[in-house]
């Protein structure tokens, strides 16, 4: 079999970026969650909040570490395997990522040390400031990277002469047509991810009858955040859908599973299809009658536009886009149902006692991560065959690197990342099993900036050893 460098380069990028995005998704959500928890602690002086903070901080720290090291890989990968893309897109997205490094990465890195190890050195107020800076850093980072990725989806503000790209308007490059919709979509996804993580772990403790105070507080907070967020996300998701339908119709055509230029009327909403791309038809399609017309055209008998509206050489692979979209959308429906159920149970005072509901929360612990990954698969596979939509094809973007070299590096990434994820899961599960450690006997809420300048006053630090076997 002859190896195709373009396919290997794509698999390598898909693998490394998919692995990476899991961790920033959790970090963006958990950083803001930790900032909220620390604010509540400072305001109420309730040591329970400090306990929650410290417990989730140790998981956050591991996830953040993996996010950093797998993110560095990406900044080199543009050039390593996609040299022609780097050469062309460098003038537009390079400066945005440079600003991301300057305004976000350094901010996170500079204050992360204080957040993780500095409570006793700087006192709670400045420590809270550090937590906020890390959280703000994750959001600034998301803003720049979503802007860069959205520019690849809906490029604007540039001119191309002889294959060289120049920026005409930075405003149009940064505020490209899809950024302002996709950014809140991603941030809300990250917040939902953290909410379900927090609620899921709390629910597991309730089911086991352990750490009840901690569990009740986190289940209450997690489900409350999730309920508000999923309501917002449904609305934002609809806006994103509309924007992409307008600017990148081929993606949404593939996501809905219809081939014909105009679908039958009334259109069903497909849940299972077996697409036959060469013959431009479905071998099998199972759906709910009328629902496609109602959801997609907001009428009872409207027809939906199929993928044949896009010329064949500009079509994405329907199967990938369709199923990624169904996974994301399906999970969103389940999340919405959980939000409604949690409101009902909260009003009836059964939020912490309905075992069935708690089991659902436990099962949903990783749902945010899965939905976010699926969403990114819609975005990225739906943009194919383009790397910069309408401007540069992936096949023309590849570096002059032999296929065997690409295969070796792909195997290297898979092996090393397998170590990362195994260790991360092992240690996270162990931390969860062990449960939150007791809050310190006297919560040191009295410190101030003074301590930062007088480290000798920090006598014996009160050590909470979370996570030592």
């Amino acid at each position, binding site marked *: 079999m002859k190896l195709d460098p373009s396919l290997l380069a794509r698999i390598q990028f898909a693998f490394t970026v998919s692995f990476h995005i899991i961790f920033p998704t959790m970090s963006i959500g958990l950083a803001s969650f930790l900032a909220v928890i620390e604010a509540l602690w400072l305001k109420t002086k309730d040591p329970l909040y400090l306990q929650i903070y410290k417990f989730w901080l140790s998981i956050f720290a591991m996830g953040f570490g993996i996010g950093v090291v797998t993110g560095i890989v990406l900044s080199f990968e543009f050039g390593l395997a996609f040299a022609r893309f780097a050469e062309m897109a460098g003038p537009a997205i390079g400066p945005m990522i440079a600003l991301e490094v300057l305004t976000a990465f350094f901010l996170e890195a500079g204050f992360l040390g204080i957040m993780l190890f500095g409570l006793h050195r700087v006192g709670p107020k400045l420590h809270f400031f550090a937590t906020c800076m890390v959280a703000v850093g994750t959001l600034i980072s998301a803003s720049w990277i979503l802007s860069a990725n959205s520019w690849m989806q809906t490029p604007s503000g540039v001119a191309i002469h002889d294959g060289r790209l120049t*920026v005409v308007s*930075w405003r149009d490059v940064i505020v490209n047509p899809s950024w302002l919709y996709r950014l809140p979509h991603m941030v809300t996804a990250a917040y939902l991810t953290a909410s379900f993580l927090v609620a899921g772990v709390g629910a597991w403790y309730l089911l086991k009858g352990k750490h009840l105070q901690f569990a009740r507080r986190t289940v209450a907070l997690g489900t409350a955040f999730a309920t508000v967020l999923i309501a917002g996300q449904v609305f934002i998701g609809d806006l994103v859908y509309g924007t992409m339908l307008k600017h990148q119709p081929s993606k949404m055509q593939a996501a809905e599973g219809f081939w014909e230029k105009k679908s039958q009327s009334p259109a069903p909403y497909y849940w299972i299809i077996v697409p036959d791309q060469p013959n431009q038809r479905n071998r099998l399609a199972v759906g709910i009658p009328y629902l496609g017309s109602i959801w997609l055209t907001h009428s009872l008998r409207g027809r939906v536009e199929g993928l044949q509206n896009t010329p064949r050489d500009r079509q994405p692979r329907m199967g990938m886009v369709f199923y990624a979209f169904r996974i994301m959308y399906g999970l969103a429906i389940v999340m919405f149902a959980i939000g409604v159920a949690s409101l009902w149970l909260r009003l009836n005072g059964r939020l912490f006692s309905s075992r069935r509901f708690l089991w659902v929360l436990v099962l949903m612990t990783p749902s945010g991560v899965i939905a976010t990954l699926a969403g990114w698969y819609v975005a990225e596979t739906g943009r194919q065959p383009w790397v910069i939509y309408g401007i540069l094809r992936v096949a023309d973007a590849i570096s002059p*690197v032999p296929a065997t070299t690409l295969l070796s590096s792909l195997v290297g990434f898979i092996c090393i990342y397998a170590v990362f994820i195994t260790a991360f899961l092992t240690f996270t599960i162990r931390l969860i099993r062990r449960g939150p450690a007791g809050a310190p006997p006297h919560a040191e809420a009295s410190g101030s900036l003074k301590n930062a300048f007088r480290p000798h006053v920090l006598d014996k630090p009160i050590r909470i050893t979370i996570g030592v076997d």
Partner: protein
Amino acid sequence: MDLPLLSALFVTFALTLYVMLDGFDLGVGILLLLQPTKNSRDHMVDSITPTWDGNETWIIMAAITLFAAFPAAYSILLPALYVPVIIMLLSLGLRGVSFEFRVQTIKHRRKWDMAFAAGSLVAALMQGVIVGAVMQGVRIDGTRFSGSVLDVFKSLPLISGVALATGYTVLGAGWLILKSNASVQHFAIRGLRVASPLFALLFGAACIYAVNIQPGIRSAWGSHPIALACLVGLFAVCAGMLALVPMKTVPVAPFVFGLLLFVDCLAGIALIVFPDIVPFRVSLWEAASSSVSQQFVLIGAVCVTPVVLGYSAFAYWIFRGRTPEEGWGE
């Protein structure tokens, strides 16, 4: 204003900070290989834990500025350096996660420490290979890399790989002499006594070899003989000071001279490479992106870099003084 030149200066600035800061982090990691005592290893890692992340960020800054301001150079150099860059990234990854994972376990901490040390060592070796490969020159055809990805594994890159790893060990030892307790300090002093003459020797050998194989370097000596001779002189002085200075009484001295040694080497390389961005092949003006892109990066860099340096210095200030025996607290 000559924007590409300013961008190139910013790339140089970011790279210099990276080498100085992550250099000592990687050096501490390499020394971990030689440290048999668990408590001392904990102490060594504790000394860099709160600030390593910011240090490593400078390499992303350098790479991304190259991507933004000199996309043509970025798209030639990275495919050419594919193998060492990938190995470096995997090693840096292993080193980075070991910070978080080693504290999660006592039973397997030694394994994570070895992963930490191996990651540091291999990353340092690969960075040296990259420097050597760039200095020996890459083959290009128009704006594309046209050589083989295995061209990098020749004598010069291999010598400079070992040289850079030894150099980082000097920095790491200097940092530990400044920041650690008496027993680790003693260990670091012994390490420095071996590493610094070895580094001087290897670096000298790499330079002489490079002059022999790369005509571009010979012609650079022809055009700046005095400046380069001064740098060689400064190198000798710093290396000599590292051998002579009383380390116990002036614990900051080895670290400062180690840093000076590196700044000196980087200045020499910059002088030889200038005005190229792909050495001896493509000048920085040929590879530059349009001035709109340059302006964006430079305005951002001028406005934000002072703030970044400010709070990074603040983080170092918070964790100043010798590393506490029991770590930094939670």
